[in-house]
């Protein structure tokens, strides 16, 4: 099975890699592109630790093949902060202790970013439903919800 040459855009930068078709986008991000912010949790689409934005849509990168990224845009947690500042969501997760062990955090950040893009002022119920595909093994959900609400307020003001 020959490797496939893939050209894609990750966090605004054009990158190229060779991938076996069987490698997931998650594996390609971590193993080929060394972007290890995106985490592997369940590897079957349930936990959301590997969430990325793929071609403008929130997905679990374990359920996408790396070769599918050819010509597409991928956004990962590494693209959220600027050199000068954390993203308001990252700041709010820190301030509200929206993480414990931290493995689920990149996934929650990416999902929350997409939530606020589509619903800038979500209700608690909307937050919980949108984030239902993200699991926190430490069960710190209340603090995560509070952090998202705080970030939403900060971003509304900005």
């Amino acid at each position, binding site marked *: *099975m*020959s490797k*496939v040459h893939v050209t894609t855009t990750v966090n605004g930068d054009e990158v190229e890699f060779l991938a*076996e*078709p*069987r490698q*997931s986008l998650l594996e390609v991000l971590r193993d080929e592109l060394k972007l290890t912010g995106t985490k592997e949790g369940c*590897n*079957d*689409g*349930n936990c*959301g630790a590997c*969430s990325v934005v*793929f071609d403008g*849509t*929130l*997905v*679990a990168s*374990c*359920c*996408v*093949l790396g*070769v*599918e990224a050819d010509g597409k845009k991928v956004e990962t947690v590494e693209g959220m902060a600027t050199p000068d500042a954390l993203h308001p969501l990252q700041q709010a997760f820190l301030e509200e202790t929206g993480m414990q062990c931290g493995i689920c955090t990149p996934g929650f950040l990416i*999902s929350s970013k*997409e939530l606020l893009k589509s619903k800038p002022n979500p209700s608690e119920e909307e937050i919980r*439903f*949108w*984030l*239902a*595909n*993200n699991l926190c093994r430490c069960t710190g959900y209340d603090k995560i919800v509070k952090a998202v609400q705080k970030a939403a307020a900060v971003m509304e003001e900005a």
Partner: protein
Amino acid sequence: MHSFDFATPTSVSDAVAILAKEGSNARLLAGGTDLLIGMRVGRATPGLVVDAKQIPELKQYKLDGNGLQLGSAVTCRTLYEDSAVVDAYPALIESAELIGGMQTQGRASIGGNLCNAAPSGDSIPTLIVLGAEAVVIGPNGQRNLAVEDVCVAPGKTSLADNELLLTINIPAPAANSGACFQRFIPRNEMDIAIASVASSVVLSGDGSTFESARIALGAVGPTPIFAQGAGDLLAGKPVNEASIQEAADAAEAVATPINDMRGTIEQRKHLINVLTKRTLREAVARAKG
């Protein structure tokens, strides 16, 4: 995951040619939320994975006076983000919004849900009660079949290895009609149905009588079940609780569930009765608009 090759046909005819040559060695990849997970655990071992998503006909949908012509790879999220589709087919949207969470819905297609042929596939009862047709194409041309004739066993469809699902065609809602899908799960979201029911009704102009009805059941048999008799008995009956109870009892009678870690036979049969009543009541309410 095992090694395989990857093909990205950009037309239906190219895809058909690939399948004609490869047969059971090839598998279509829509959203991959069933296929890739199945491959990871060795349940499917195709030598060639054929991406459906570069084929325009499979990624498009058209909503007009004839109904919804739904390309097989269109995602659940695409559907529920289109308010015209939401207005025309609330039951379909109830299914689409239940398939996993946001990450799943951004990839998962209704066509993949149907072709995966899970007894619990949440769009399948809905497609059955909406009278949907599957348009299938292969080396011998195109054929249309009723959606209830697609699933034949758990994980198995009546499509040949060299055929693919092109579109799912859902007729335009009739006047005075309504439909509803509900499932029972122990959580609020992100779980597999213990039992599910879709119902659709067409009422007389004054809303007093059932002209026709269709009822379909999920997760209570080797395939989703078209409970045709249960729907048919409503034709000509007054719209009241007695009629609805009669249909619910008939639906329960054709459910053939198993005991497993998710639920018991007794619970599943009871749920079919309850969900049939609830979905019929809601379908009636929607028909009265």
